[in-house]
């Protein structure tokens, strides 16, 4: 692996600098002339006008492997991740078989290493088969080669208060984290979209915001009572923000993520009855979008997470009620985060780095990620062109699936390069094809 010299990048908060990467780590920053590297064979990457971010970290990715390799594989999903600027993704547990044993999480982690496009950190299931009844072998997963620290029944709320309490207590033994999909299941039976003016008109059964908020309120209290850490997946409502803000003020160990689509789209999109806009939790109202944007800027919401959910064409090319929920997110997340945090002109790149890389890396305990380019740091970085916008063309995405809700939209900022432990996975906006570990 040759050395890489990144010339003239804007280091967030530290001004313009060169960065020399050697042996997978940052060797040197400051002003480094190419001449001084004569003979070392370093590859020079011109980063004039580009922003160098710590590599993005996604707390919430569905890679679909094992089980639904027609929709996505670990390889295709991590290629999409790299193209979107990610160097690490947390793979959700709802594969087939479910990631509820050490064997499955080790397999997923190994597939990630073999593909080589991004580090894959498996998330383990809280309960056996995501069934919500018995605890999965959480300790075995934690102590496996995959070193799982985050557990979630994502897609299924851990609605049983007693099971949730036990899970919160149990993961304290190794400082683990429960990531809750907050959805009171009795309030959302048959639900198809946000409950509101639009659902009333469209005749689609509503998913009331209180179904999310009531679980968040309960689990904040359980975390406080047990002294455990809790993380909330994809929060989507204004009142959820309020509850989390209040809990943080009281010192509860709570973190929360928001998805790009909840920062941009509203339930008005459902009027098309096009299931590409069907997602769980559903697209909410404008007031929720604005509250989530403010909370992300403020830090009440800790991280942007994609909930990247690839689906095969037949699972979306149908009537709304028959469609599976979820949308692609990895390749569009940074653009939308920048948009939600003020747009490419006004955005504070330090906040972007915090919410898309440093904080999610801390939450997921990914020690090799979320580091700024200082000497000795692991070289996981993303180079962003803040001035170049792009148009989303589904057929050009690296994901195997095409269910992006942003087709045809022009989005700000492009990923020019991604570096995983000092090796380029993306250069000049294109995936590097010959990558091997």
């Amino acid at each position, binding site marked *: 692996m040759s050395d890489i010299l990144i010339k003239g990048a804007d280091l967030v908060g530290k001004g313009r600098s060169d960065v020399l990467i050697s042996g997978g780590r940052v060797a040197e920053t400051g002003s480094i002339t190419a001449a001084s590297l004569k003979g070392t064979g370093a590859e020079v990457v011109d980063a004039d006008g580009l922003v160098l971010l710590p590599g993005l970290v996604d707390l919430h990715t569905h890679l679909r492997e094992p089980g639904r390799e027609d929709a996505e594989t670990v390889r295709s999903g991590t290629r999409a991740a790299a193209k979107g600027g990610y160097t690490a993704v947390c793979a959700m547990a709802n594969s087939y078989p479910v990631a509820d044993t050490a064997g499955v999480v080790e397999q997923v982690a190994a597939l990630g290493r073999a593909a080589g496009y991004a580090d894959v950190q498996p998330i383990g299931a809280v309960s056996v088969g995501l069934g919500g009844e018995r605890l999965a072998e959480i300790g075995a997963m934690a102590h496996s080669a995959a070193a799982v620290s985050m557990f979630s029944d994502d897609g299924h709320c851990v609605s049983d208060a007693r099971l949730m309490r036990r899970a919160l207590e149990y993961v304290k033994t190794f400082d683990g984290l429960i990531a809750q999909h907050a959805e009171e299941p009795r309030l959302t039976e048959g639900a198809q979209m946000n409950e509101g003016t639009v*659902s009333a008109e469209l005749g689609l059964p509503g998913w009331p915001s209180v179904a999310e908020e009531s679980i968040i309120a309960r689990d904040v209290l359980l975390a406080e009572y047990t002294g455990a850490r809790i993380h909330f997946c994809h929060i989507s409502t204004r009142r959820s923000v309020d509850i989390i803000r209040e809990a943080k003020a009281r010192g509860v160990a709570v973190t929360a993520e928001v998805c790009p689509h909840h920062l941009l789209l509203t339930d008005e999109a459902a009027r098309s009855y096009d299931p590409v806009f069907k997602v769980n939790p559903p697209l909410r109202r404008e007031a929720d979008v604005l509250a989530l944007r403010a909370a992300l800027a403020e830090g009440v919401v800790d991280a942007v997470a994609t909930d990247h959910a690839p689906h095969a064409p037949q699972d979306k090319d149908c009537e709304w009620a028959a469609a599976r929920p979820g949308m692609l997110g990895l390749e569009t997340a940074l653009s939308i985060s920048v948009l939600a945090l003020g747009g490419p002109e006004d955005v504070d790149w330090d906040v972007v780095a915090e919410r898309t890389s440093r904080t999610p890396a801390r939450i997921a305990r990914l020690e090799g990620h979320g580091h700024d380019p200082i000497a000795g740091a692991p070289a996981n970085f993303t180079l962003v062109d803040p001035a170049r916008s792009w148009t989303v063309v589904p057929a050009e995405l690296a994901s195997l699936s095409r269910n992006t809700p942003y087709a045809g939209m022009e989005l700000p900022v492009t990923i020019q390069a991604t570096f995983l432990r000092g090796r380029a996975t993306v250069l000049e906006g294109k995936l590097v094809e010959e990558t091997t570990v």
Partner: protein
Amino acid sequence: MKHLLTTKELTRDEAELILELTGQMADAVSGREVPKLPTLRGRTVVNLFYEDSTRTRTSFETAAKRLSADVVNFSAKTSSVSKGESLRDTALTLQAMGADAVVIRHPAAGAPQRLTQWLDGAVLNAGDGTHAHPTQALLDAYTMKQRLGGIEGRTVAVVGDIVHSRVARSNVWLLSKLGAKVRLVGPPTLLPANLEEWPVEVAYDLDSSLSDADAVMMLRVQRERMNDAFFPTANEYARLYGLDERRLALMPDHAIVMHPGPMNRGMEIAAAVADSPRATITEQVANGVWVRMAVLYLLLTNGETA
């Protein structure tokens, strides 16, 4: 007009044109020895029904046949939208067979709108989930026009299970567009949440909602709803929201009682009320054929060959 998917998307002019054509269809056919017009000869109308509804399907079939169209009944017997052939594949099949119009009844809201993306022919919504049932609302409006002399300024109370009713939704948009005052009456459990932006009044008490009503439209309430805590028992529902003779007496003398059928006698409507001369239930059925003729004619000819 290319399709008829909802009454919300109709302009007032379009709605009035349909109602006017409805009258013309009734007059034209009623005078004939053979009750048939040659207008749609050689055109194919497919009835694509994913829910059992002999009433509505028969009404559409009769309407199409009276316009001399060829009618194909494509009965998609499946209780679940996730089973069997996909809607898209069925649409492509109908497209390949050359359907000029597809009349669709489907349990999933929005299915007719999806169909328009896969078919060149006209799509006519015969009821989709709890979303819309535009021809039912049009036949209701036509019936009111006949019985009340007009719709503008009239007060219509729609009573019962609003949240699960595509008939109620289609009536709200059409009647308010035509200048009527619409009042939705039912327990809060059977009203949609977030009605603030709808052009309606909302009332929880039936007795006090009747004295100024020109028409009272009773909706079918499924007894099984009580198992899901929408109301405690069928008896309590009938007591609070059923239209019986005592309540009929609270209505103005000229006011009519409507029901889209099929009725639960003794539940939302007492037998004596259903059979009273003030009930328009069988007229609604008869008018349904004229309305569906008018809509098929409009969609398939663009009103060119009157």
